[in-house]
């Protein structure tokens, strides 16, 4: 029996209703205008691969990740993680993925890093000495042992991002979803995060990583596979080695051509 791919998306569609004020609701009650975020995405990510999603703002990267994390339901099509349909089997799907929520507000700022992990660890079913050991291990992996007892609001942006990874790893899921993990980081901190994801988690621990980014260099350096999304569709995909064979300039050219072509077709 062949093993299911880590991540599978088939003809995935998501539309968000356009926000309307009271006046609009009264005057046009049956108006159902919507913004299309995903317009038939097909994607397959093999186990143990680092898969970078590239695309301009509003391309649909975050929506795709949120669907895979079971935070948003698709309107049509199918998405599965580790063989579990995210709409029909949200429970097993949740257990199969770790979503590194990039928003630093997703932590409790007045609690320490350790207290935050203790809380989320309990929600992932960890308890007792095994939970404490797991948290110690993750704080070590994230390089936060010394800062574990400090309040989250005293952390730097890089430390907050590392704590987000530690939280996503609490359940030790095989699939990791990360959304622009190096956004707002200085070059050194960004390099450290890239190395952590690529070398420690993907190469070292065999995690599958779906990694949304705007940074072409990051994708060229870290990804096994790359897909360019624009206007809700995959416009270009392939092994990173092939797409970036001509260097970053070649990848940039291919990216821009794919995005420009999508603007012409939509």
């Amino acid at each position, binding site marked *: 029996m062949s093993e299911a791919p880590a991540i599978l998306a088939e003809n995935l569609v998501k539309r968000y209703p356009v926000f309307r004020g009271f006046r609009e609701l009264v005057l046009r009650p049956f108006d159902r205008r919507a913004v299309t975020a995903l317009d038939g995405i097909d994607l397959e990510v093999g186990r143990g691969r680092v898969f970078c999603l590239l695309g301009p703002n509003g391309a649909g990267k975050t929506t795709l990740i*949120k669907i895979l*994390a*079971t*935070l*948003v*339901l698709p309107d049509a099509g199918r998405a599965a993680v580790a063989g579990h349909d995210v*709409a029909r089997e*949200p*429970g097993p799907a*949740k*257990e199969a*993925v770790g*979503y590194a*929520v990039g*928003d*630093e*507000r*997703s*932590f*409790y700022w*007045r*609690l320490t890093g350790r*207290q935050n992990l*203790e*809380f*989320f660890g*309990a*929600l*992932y*079913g*960890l*308890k*007792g*000495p*095994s*939970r404490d050991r*797991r948290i110690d*291990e993750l704080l070590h992996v994230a390089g936060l042992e010394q800062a574990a007892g400090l*309040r989250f609001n005293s952390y730097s942006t890089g430390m907050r991002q590392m704590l987000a990874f530690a*939280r996503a790893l609490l*359940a*030790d899921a095989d699939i990791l979803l990360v959304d622009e993990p190096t956004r707002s980081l200085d070059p050194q901190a960004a390099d450290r995060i890239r190395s952590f994801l690529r070398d420690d988690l993907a190469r070292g621990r065999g995690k599958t990583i779906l990694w949304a980014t705007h940074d072409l260099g990051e994708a060229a350096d870290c990804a096994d596979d790359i897909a360019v999304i624009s206007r809700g569709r995959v416009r270009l995909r392939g092994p990173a080695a092939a797409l970036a064979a001509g260097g970053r300039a070649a990848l940039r050219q291919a990216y821009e051509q794919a995005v420009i072509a999508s603007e012409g077709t939509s």
Partner: protein
Amino acid sequence: MTGGRRAAGWSATVMIAFVRRDLREALTYKLSFLSSVTGILLSSATFYFVAKLVPAGTPALGPFGGDYFSFAVVGVAFAGLLGMFQEGLASVVRGAQVSGTLEALLVTPVPVPAILFGSSLYGLLFQVFRTVLHLGVALAFFGLALGRVNAAGVVAVGFLTVLCFLSIGLTTRFKDLATFGIKPIWAFTIGVVVNVPLGYFLSTVAFQNYWRFLGR
């Protein structure tokens, strides 16, 4: 690496984690935490002295035993509790949305109802503590008279009111929760199922005399 990991959900571990989280946060605001407790003592004393200004035997207080202090303290103590039940769930969802923690909670394997309940548990427990403390202080130091209280009636009405207010809270947030995949109809149905019989009870039993009086 996964040793010790068990399915989370409605387990005591999860509920305790929610309460501990909120207690730890509350304790970081030391002065606020302290004042919320000492405020109960002060408000009881305030009502005691205000009650001295209300003449004994005021006709309007007749149905309540004629004692303004008992009337006011019981009202204030339970108003806070009912308000918490009414606002509890709604404020939990809104608070998590505003603070940005909602998504991080929803990606965990804990079911959404357990997240909602767990997140409001500390507030509910603290409000129960406040109510008990309020009544306890009034009983111990200011001679609160509870002789005319119908305990069974309080429990019955309290239970139904809690259900009703919890449903209102859930119903008001279904639009926000729907974004994350919760079927709005569930929340709405729960609201209707609870509110209709409660409305019937309140209209035909609890407030029967009041409606008759109004009808005249």
